[in-house]
Each structure stands twice: as C-alpha cells, then as structure tokens.
C-alpha cells in the first residue's frame, strides 16, 4: 500500500499510484466490461468467462509485481461477481448492465472512502492527478448522482425504447471523466478529462435517435462544447506560454510572480474562465443549457445537471481558488460580474418557463451562481461550502429530474406546468417528494438545500462578499417563486379532466428506492448535517 501510494517521481518512468486512481480505474473497467458483455451478444457467458480469466491472470501478475494484494484481490472478486451476475441475468442484458453500473458506482464510493481514510493529500502520477479532499468529495458526488440515475432511468429508457447497450458504458465513461476532472492537477489532465466526459455526454444527449429535439440538443451541445473546449485549450496554451508548465502548482506559482506579463495573464485567465464557464453553465456562457437539458433523455439531464456541475466546479475550484488563488484580485471582479448575472438571469428566465425540464435547466444556472460564491471566497470554508453545496444539489437535482422521469412515463411527452395540475391530489406521495426537492432547491430550512445555501452564504460573508450574498438572496426569492408555482399547480390546482383517466403514479422497484433514498437524504441532511459538514470541511484540502 505504502509503495502504491507514494508520491510519484517525475521523469521517464513515473510510478503509477494505482490505489490513488482506483476509483477512476473501477469506473473505466466496469464501462469496458459492460460494453464487452453487451457486444458479446448471445455468447455472453463465454465473454464473461474470458473476462474472469483475464482478470485473474492480470490480478495475479499485478500482485506478484507490486507485492500489494488488496487491489488485485478486489479485482479478482469483481471478476467472479460479474460471472455470477451474467449467469443470473442471461436473458436480460439491460438489467445486467444496470446492475453492473450500479455496482461500479458503489465500488467507487467504497474505494474513495478507503483512499480518503488511508492516503495523505498529495499529487500522484507525476503530478497529473491530485488525491486530495476535493477529488475524493467530487467522486462521492458523481457516484451518488450516477447511482441514483441508474435507478431512476431504467424503466424510462425501456419504455421509450432507447435502452440500448451503450447507455451504461457511456454513463460510466462520463463518470470516469468527471471524477478525473475533479482530481486533475494538471491543465492537460483537465482538458483530457473534460473531453472524456463531454464526448460521452454528447452521445447520451442524442441517445433517442428518432427524437428530433434530442438530435438538435446533441448537435448544439457538441458544437458549443467543442468551441468551449477549444477556448479552454487556448487558455491552457497561454498559461504554458507564460509559465512554461501546465502543472497547476508550478503554473500557479509562476503566474503569481511579479513581472509576469499582465496582458497575457489576464487573457489566459479569461479564456480559462470562458472554458469552465461553459461547462458549469455560467451566464453568459449558458446558452446551451436550457436546450440541452430539455432535449436530452430526462435521466441523462439529471445526471448532467448534477455530476457535470460537480466535476467542472471541482476543477474550476482547483484551478482558480487553488492554483491561481494568489491572483484572486485579478480574476475576482470578472467572476463577481458573472456570478451576479448568473444568479439573476437564471432565476428570472426560469420564471417564464412552462416546460418543467427547461425550468429546472434555468434553475440549474441560478444554482451555478450560488456555487460561484463559495468558489470566490478563496478560503477553506469556501472550498468546503462549494463541495457540500454540489453534493446536496446533486441529490436534489437528480431527484427532481427523477420525478419528472416518472411523470413523463405517464404523460408520454414533455411535462409542462399544466400537466402536473392536481397531481398532488392523485398521487400525494410522489408529489410530496417532488415538493420536498423543490423546497430544498429553494433553500427552505428543514431540507438539505438550506444547509447548503447557508454554507455558501456563510463562506461568502466571511470573505467580505456580503453584497454578492445579498444578490443571491434576491435571486433565491425569485427562484422560490417558480419552485412554488409547481407546488401550487400540484397541490392547489384542480385536476384537468383528461388527467382523471390516468391511474395514480406509484413508482416501484428501483425508481421507488432511488426516490426514497434521495428524499431521505434531503431531510436527514437538512436536520442533522453535522457529519457531512465535517466530511466536507475535512475535504477542503487542495493538493497541488
């Protein structure tokens, strides 16, 4: 273990800290595994046996070579487990994919917890990857979002007949990119991670091949995403030009030196802000968000809104609050403006939406603004508040999109405000859960959303950003208005006659379990957040 977790040495033969990147490796490995099993078709047992054989041989070799047996043993165990699962669900490949993906996310959480408990905060793999609190916490967030998404999306994808084999591998690859992004300690790594997650998400967005809206979304997302990646890359190039390094620690230190060409630094920072701004949907780089959120399959939208945001903000945090923290006076005014615009535009435009997915898309923009407050605080409290907010937001966001997923299965079309009228009378439990998520997003006490907002506001006021917090307050009130509109429609409006023919919505199985877990988390974290707050504040370590 100690051998594995040692700090990497730079040079021609970097020592690979397998343990430190084991969560990513797991996600990636499961993705490949699911893909293999799927492409093997009817020969699945054979493919499965092959996988087991390769795993066992590889694990044995790795164990002999490194002398550490924990990981190889885990890998071997996973190999046996997949064989058992394959045998169990021979005729149901989708279910097998879902179960394996879920198991992959659970394993990621477990491995991250193990790493967090045992390994010190450091950078590994020649300074490319950070194994610190931010990375660990982002992995939790992404894995939780992924796990919920798998549970919520299964039936929906079946019914829309878009449940194809690539879904789970793509989901897992996107998650790999996201966790890697949260752990990137080098601008090149940032770029690679962003590309991995983006490419997967482009495809996932356009997954419903016959749905023109989805196709349009995917194309739009792809074009704008590629554009933003290019800008980001240009920013990376400028940083490299100024400092001679893409390593965050070195580049940050070099940029902070007096005498650095100011114009170039500002240009580099601006381009990086644009790049990250696209991924985190900060105004004015948010244009793609509502369209893409609306067009993508609803479970994918939930995953995108939660996990992409968490990962991109983690990198944003590491680069700006961490590496370029000394330059805070240079970049904070720009972000200040963007944050104000993001909070206000997101909230105001959400008010006029009638399509619920689109409304939640705009609300996601407003939330990006709140997270920016934590980022701009450039403090330990700011980092922990940001991480805490992102996790809580992920749960509430995936949960609310999950309810929309369930609703869409009933209406067989996009859910508008009119479609949920009287929904609370017919299905009080599901509507109550939706109301809980919405109240949480609005930041009412008793829900996790309040604790998250409180953490961010607290960090903001501490960092003398009081007026920015006041803007956030105004934005929150506007946001409360449109969240309330949904609650009003669900509980206080009468049911339209055509809805009376539909049966009440009673989710079962994985959907019910996911919704129950998410709503329980929202309440528990709202009442006794102590443990998670502690975890987040301990995770507020940035290793560069």
């Amino acid at each position: 273990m100690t051998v594995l977790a040692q700090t990497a040495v730079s040079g021609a033969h970097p020592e690979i800290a397998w343990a430190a990147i084991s969560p990513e490796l797991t996600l990636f490995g499961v993705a490949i595994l699911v893909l293999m099993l799927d492409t093997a078709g009817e020969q699945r047992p054979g493919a499965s046996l092959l996988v087991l054989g390769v795993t066992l041989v590889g694990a044995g070799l790795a164990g002999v070579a490194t002398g550490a047996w924990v990981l190889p043993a885990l890998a071997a165990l996973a190999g046996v487990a997949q064989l058992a699962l394959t045998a169990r669900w021979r005729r149901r490949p989708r279910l097998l994919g879902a179960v394996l993906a879920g198991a992959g996310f659970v394993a990621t959480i477990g491995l991250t917890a193990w790493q967090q408990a045992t390994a010190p905060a450091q950078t590994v793999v020649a300074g490319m990857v950070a194994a610190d609190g931010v990375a660990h916490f982002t992995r939790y967030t992404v894995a939780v979002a992924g796990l919920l998404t798998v549970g919520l999306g299964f039936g929906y994808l079946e019914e829309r007949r878009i449940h194809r084999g690539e879904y789970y591998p793509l989901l897992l690859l996107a998650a790999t990119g996201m966790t890697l992004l949260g752990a990137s300690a080098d601008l090149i790594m940032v770029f690679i991670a962003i590309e991995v997650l983006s490419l997967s998400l482009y495809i996932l967005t356009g997954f419903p091949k016959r749905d023109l809206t989805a196709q349009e979304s995917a194309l739009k997302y792809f074009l704008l995403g590629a554009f933003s990646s290019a800008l980001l890359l240009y920013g990376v190039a400028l940083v490299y030009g100024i400092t001679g390094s893409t390593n965050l620690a070195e580049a940050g230190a070099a940029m902070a030196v007096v005498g650095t060409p100011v114009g170039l630094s500002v240009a580099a920072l601006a381009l990086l802000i644009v790049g990250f701004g696209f991924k985190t949907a900060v105004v004015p780089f948010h244009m793609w968000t509502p369209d893409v959120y609306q067009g993508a399959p609803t479970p994918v939208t939930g995953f995108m809104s939660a996990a992409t945001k968490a990962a991109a903000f983690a990198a944003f945090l590491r680069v700006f609050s961490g590496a370029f923290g000394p330059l805070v006076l240079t970049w904070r005014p720009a972000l200040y403006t963007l944050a104000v615009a993001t909070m206000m535009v997101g909230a105001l435009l959400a008010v006029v939406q009638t399509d619920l997915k689109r409304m939640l898309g705009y609300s996601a923009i407003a939330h990006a603004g709140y997270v920016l407050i934590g980022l701009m605080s450039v403090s330990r409290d700011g980092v922990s508040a940001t991480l805490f907010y992102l996790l809580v937001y992920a749960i509430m966001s995936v949960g609310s999109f999950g309810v929309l997923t369930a609703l869409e299965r009933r209406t067989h079309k996009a859910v508008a405000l009119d479609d949920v009228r009287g929904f609370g009378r017919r299905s009080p439990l599901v509507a109550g859960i939706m109301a809980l998520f919405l109240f949480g997003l609005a930041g009412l006490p008793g829900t996790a959303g309040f604790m998250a907002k409180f953490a961010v506001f607290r960090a903001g006021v501490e960092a003398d950003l009081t007026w920015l917090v006041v803007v956030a307050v105004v934005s929150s009130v506007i946001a409360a208005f449109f969240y309330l509109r949904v609650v009003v429609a669900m509980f206080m409006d009468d049911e339209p006659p055509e809805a009376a023919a539909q049966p009440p919505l009673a989710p079962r199985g994985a959907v019910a379990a996911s919704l129950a877990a998410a709503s329980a988390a929202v309440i528990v974290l709202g009442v006794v957040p102590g443990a998670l707050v502690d975890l987040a504040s301990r995770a507020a370590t940035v290793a560069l």
Partner: protein
Amino acid sequence: MGPPILSTLIALPALGAAVAAAIPSHKRDAIRTTALATTIVTFLASLVMYARFEAGVAAFQLEEHVDWIPAWGVRYSLGVDGITLFLVLLCTFLMPVAVGATWGQVPQQVKGFYASVLVLESAMIGVFVALDLILFYVFFEAMLVPMYILIGVWGGERRKYAAVKFFLYTLVGGFLMLVGILYLYFKGGAQTFDYSALLQVPLTITEETLLFGAFFIAFAIKVPLFPFHTWLPDAHTEAPTIGSVDLAAILLKIGGYGILRFLLPYFPAATRLLAPGIVALSVVGVLYGALVAMMQSDIKRLVAYSSVAHMGFVILGVFALDVTSASGSVVQMVNHGLSTGALFILVGFMYERTHSRVIAEYSGLAKAAPVFGGVFLLVVLSSLALPGLNGFVGEFPILIGAFQTMPAAAVTATFGVVLAALYLLWAYQRMFHGPVEGSSRRMPDLNPREVAVMVPVVALIIGIGLYPKPLYDRVTPTIEQMITHPSLERTARAEPPRGPAAVAARTERSR
C-alpha cells in the same frame, strides 16, 4: 426535573403530526381526535413550563444547550424569559381551542390538514424559545411551509394568490435576516450564533443601521407594520379559520417578538436613531388600519385590518423605548392573540353555517343566535379595549408609556382607540341588531362543543382584564433589563439623549 420541558413542547406536536400521518385517511375523526389530544397535552406541558418559570427574574430560564453543527458553531439552544413565556402559552392555549372550534370545517384531506397544523405549532413554539440565531431562523422559515399549505390547499377562492404572496413576502425578509445574522456572526468572531454572545459584538453606526434594516424588514413584514402589511388581508381572509387564528394570534406576534428580542438589544444606536420614524409608521398603521377596517364589507377582512391597527399599537409601545409601554406591548400581543383569535373563530362559526361573510347580508344575529351574539359582543369589547377586559390592560400602558417619551405619537394613536370602537361597534350594530333578515335566518345558535371551546377564551379575556398582575410580574423584569440596558442610553423615565449624543456614545463604546 424530568425531561427538558422546552424540547418536549417542540417535539410533542411534531410527534402528533407523525401519528396523525400514520392513521388511514378515511378515519377522519381519529385524525381529528389525535390532533386535539396532541394540542391539549402540549398545553398541559406548557403549564409545567409556567410552573417552573420563576417570576421576577429577567434572565433566560429553563435553558437547554446541545451542539448541533459544531463545524459552523451552530447550537441547539433553547430558553424562555418574560417576553416569550406568555407567547408560548398563548400558542399552546389557542391551538386546542382552534382545533376544537374547527372540528368539522375541513371535510377533505383531513390528514394533511391536521399534520400541517401540528407541524406549524412545533415551529411556532420553536421560534419563541430558540436562543441560537440559526435555530431561530430555521424555525422562523419552517413556519412558512405548513402555513403556506394551509392557506393554499384549504383556503378560500383566491387562496393560491394569497398563499404565494404570503410565502414570498416572508421569504424576502427571512433571507435578508439570514445575511444579517451571518454578518453579525463573523463580526463577533467567536464562531457562535448564541444569542447572548452576539450581544457583545461591536459595530459601527453604519453597520448597525444596515443590519437593523436587514432584521427589521423581516419582522416588519411579519408584524405587519404599515406599509409592509399588504400580504395580510389576503392571507387572513383566504386562510381557513384555523390558519387565520394562527396567523393573527401567533405569527404576527413573532414580528413583535423579533423586534424586542433582536433589534433593541443588538442595535441600540440604530434603534435610537430610527425609533421616531418607526413610531410614525406604527401610528400611521394604527389609523390606516382602523380606517380601512371601517370600509370593509367582509367581516373577516375587517378583523384582518383591525390586526394592522392593533399591531401598530404594539410597535408603538416597543419603539417608545419605555418600560411601561414595552411591557404593555408584550401583554397586548397576548391580548390581541386572544381577542383576534376568538374573533376569527366566531367568524368561522358563522361562515360554516351561512357561507357568507358579507356584513350587509346579516341583520338581527343577536336575536337569531343569542349566545353567539353575547360572546361576539364580549370579544368585540375586549378588542376595542374596554376597561375590565384584557384589551385595556395592554393598550392603556402602551399609551401611558408612550406619552412619556413620544407624546405626539401617543395622542395621535389614541384616536385609533376611538376608531376601533367605531368600526367594531358599527359592524356589530349592523350585523347583530335589527330584525332577523338575510343570512341570519340560516344561523342556528352555538352548539355545546362550540360553547365549550369558547368558555376558556372568554374566561381568560375577563380574567386578564381584571387581574393582569401575573403577566406583568413576569414580563416587566425582562423588559426593564432590556430597556434600561446601558446601551439603550435611557432609563425608564429619564429624558432621552437626542440622536447625535447617543451615536457619539455608541461609537465610543465600540472602540
């Protein structure tokens, strides 16, 4: 000592709500009985609190402290003093009355209704006894959701509009207060949101004024002080009876309570600076509320506007910065809760029978329903502060006290008392006197259950009116400590130092 009494008071209604939620929806009477039993038990528990409370002590009593979120310095701290003791009692007393009075008024979705009512009670008690600012804030906002649901789901015709308006108004104030709390917390630098610890935070006058504003808006909306009152008539009128009772009797008091608890001790210099302006607003509220009440054709709306007037008195009493008037304000809050709560219950009885609240549609109610008429008259008289009834023992000290420090305001506000007599008695005359006509024909008298719930209310109205000493014994020490606190720069009867002097003294202390 037994279990901590304040936590018990908060927990009981919440537990009751959980029990009610577990009962199958069609067993309506079982749900109602659960709600009634819960509120009665809570009331009995609050009597234990009263018994344990030591009269004549200014400080917090029956305190409880537990860590809640240590990383942020948030604690679960409870305590009760002279200001909150009777507000909690008012709350626990009125809840069983209101539940009993509205027994059959909600025929549908009974479970959700009573669960909301009970959760609301928990939150209201919590607001009064919380001694940690974040805990206070949590309860403050937590009241919003059940109240919003009560108005929005079981309210009148324009319930959606009223509910959303109520919600957003309160939320604006609340969030601003949260920013204020955070600012205070970091200024204090002690990583604590403890009420008493934050009293020591040094502030410049600019900071004080801004923070005063942040807190004041939250509470002024709750009170509601003119011109922040526009949500109130809608919310009151559209809410189901029990919601109106809770709103008028308890939620409005939270505004007055917050002003006393936070504004005066935390921001004394700003209080001194802004007091005249706020007194002016409160006097405007007294007169405006009375005049608008007079113009109402809907009896429930009339009662709602009368609250604006009455709460104007309360705020006048507080910002007159005089021990007598401020003590009167606390007592008046209790009295207003009793009288207005009773009025809303009575209007609810009437509406349940006739489905009309239009004053002009009634005539001769006193003949049609003599017991109802008698109780109504008594409550109206209490509301217009007839000596011998409870309204008088609150309003009179307010006027006396205010006359010492702000004579002009006191004199003007006295016209409000006259106007109150006018609009209340005029309405009474139109509805209860004359031949039995219109909706009055469909008005049978109160049944035994309704009489039974009104008896304790009437008894208290008369009892407090004749013997208010137990209240003042417990209220005055706390108020005296607050108002004569050196930072407010004024002893009970001394001539106040004028603005600049107070500011100078305050700034000096800040260094």
